[in-house]
């Protein structure tokens, strides 16, 4: 049984990582085309750093991604709580409204936001790009925080306020730590969505601001440069290392003990 579980997870991992492995491989391929193995090379890595467009897109992607994820996490968590506290009727209505952007085709979201910014007479650029990313990330955050709120021990917030915490203090000291997994997964989701988004970004950005997705998509016409594979490999390695470091720290910290308690879950 235990073996089976591990094998299953391993298979899922293979599924998830097979294309990534290939991507990494391509980054060392001495041919511009995916279809041909032209021998091992590091030249894409060299060229990568001299490509102004890619580097600046990378910067935009990262800064927009992080900013949008942080802001939408704050906004979304706040929103989830506001929704959670509403009476059932208005809450369901608001929930539907908040989920609307997810129902839209990306291009519709992109175009409608573009029209919105035009109405507001905003010059397309970094700000509009950021705003649009925030706006499509928030529903995902709300969606991941909501279930955690439902699982909350109802007296917890009360206990905090009872002890003199203002609602805000109570939130930060008691509620937030408790719903943290939901908030974190919301943040991750937002970051992921933002980094991966092309369509909405395209319509809502303006001169001078381009993210990686836009650069990559527009490259497709002429063949995606293996430089992008090299970049992806670097990002991947970076995040992986960062993650391992963070987790190693985590293992040393007493919180690790908390996990051991779970040993008895029967499945």
């Amino acid at each position, binding site marked *: 049984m235990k073996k089976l579980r591990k094998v299953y997870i391993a298979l899922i991992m293979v599924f998830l990582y097979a294309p990534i492995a290939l991507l990494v491989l391509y980054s060392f391929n001495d041919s511009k085309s995916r279809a041909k193995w032209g021998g091992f090379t590091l030249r894409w890595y060299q060229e990568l750093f001299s490509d102004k467009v890619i580097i600046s897109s990378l910067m935009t992607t990262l800064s927009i991604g992080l900013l949008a994820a942080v802001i939408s996490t704050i906004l979304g968590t706040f929103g989830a709580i506001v929704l959670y506290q509403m009476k059932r009727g208005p809450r369901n209505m608001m929930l539907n409204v908040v989920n609307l952007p997810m129902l839209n085709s990306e291009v519709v979201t992109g175009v409608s936001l573009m029209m919105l910014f035009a109405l507001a007479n905003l010059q397309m650029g970094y700000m509009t790009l950021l705003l649009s990313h925030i706006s499509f990330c928030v529903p995902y955050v709300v969606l991941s925080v909501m279930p955690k709120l439902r699982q909350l*021990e109802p*007296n*917890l917030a*009360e*206990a*905090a*306020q*009872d*002890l*003199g*915490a*203002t*609602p805000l*203090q*109570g939130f930060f*000291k*008691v509620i937030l*730590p*408790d719903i943290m997994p939901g908030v974190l997964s919301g943040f991750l989701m937002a970051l992921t969505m933002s980094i991966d988004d092309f369509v909405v970004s395209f319509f809502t950005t303006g001169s001078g601001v381009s993210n990686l997705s836009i650069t990559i998509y527009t490259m497709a016409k002429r063949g995606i440069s293996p430089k992008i594979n090299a970049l992806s490999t670097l990002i991947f390695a970076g995040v992986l290392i960062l993650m391992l470091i963070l987790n190693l720290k985590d293992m040393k910290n007493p919180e690790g*003990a*908390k996990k051991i*308690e779970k040993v008895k879950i029967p499945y």
Partner: protein
Amino acid sequence: MDNNIILSIRNVKVVFEDGFTALGGVSIDIGQNEFVTLLGPSGCGKTTLLRCIGGFEKPTSGEILYKGENIIPLPPYKRNINTVFQRYALFPHMNVAQNVAFGPSLRREDKKQISARVSEMLELVGLAGFEKRRISSLSGGQQQRVAIARALINSPDVLLLDEPLGALDLKLRREMQLELKRIQRESGITFIFVTHDQEEALTMSDRVAVMRAGEILQLGTPVDIYNEPESAFVADFIGASNILPSTMVRDHLVHFLGTDFPCADSGFGENNPVDVVLRPEDVKLKPESDPANGVVGVVESLLFKGVHYEMKVRTGADALLVHSTHARQVGTRVKMTVAPEDIQVMRKSDYSPDVRARKGEGGAQ
């Protein structure tokens, strides 16, 4: 208005969304440094009343005055009132010390001082050395004590305690009772205490409010409540009692169990139906042949209760609960006598056994 009254609850009603009336107009004035206990059966609205005072439940109607000022619009954290919750509501992601230090650390008090106070509080509740323990590794009683320490450390004006000693063993419970009582006296904090233990209520309180189905039936000092219950329900609830449908023959003479008994009460008219309440410890057992005025019965069951034996003595259709330090074997015939001052006569209420039987009301609720 009385200067000493710190909390004044005026006709507070709570009707839940599903239409259930949890409190049906409760009024009570609580004095500075008073120890008031709410006593009542499960589901009678004790917790709901505390939640109204704490600010977690908005009364459907009524007023709650704190030092003369209506605090209903005030959020909980602006009330100088702390609560020990019935189900503890400890913060799961903090250890014991962090839980206890929550209040003071909010007020940004000096860290060293806080940690000294935390140790002091934990010492007080018998958990010295538990500072670093995770909440989930504590036993039920230990968790409860952490909850008490967490509330006490804030030295609030009013402390609400919802069955705070419920999970403690008798010995610890006694110790904590004395400790809480001492704290209350010395600190000048007003305690509003919920318990289902009548002995606890009688021991600790300045006044006891007996509640039933969202109403306060009787409010008074422990001795008043115990000795002069105003209704059969209170009498029964405050200590196991025998409630017998009776007839007041005339002043100072009441008829029950087929016999006339002299009694201390008067003013119920003549030949009126009343209830008589007999405490089990007030019924004395004599040999059957004893000449005293009494009723003969057969011991039906015998239970050892430590301090005394509890017997059920049957006479005709009725069975009386009797406490005695001497056991009588099951089947023994005995004569039961009661001193006139131990007979409590009270007006019929819906709690009278014959009324309840007619209504078809079952056991508890």
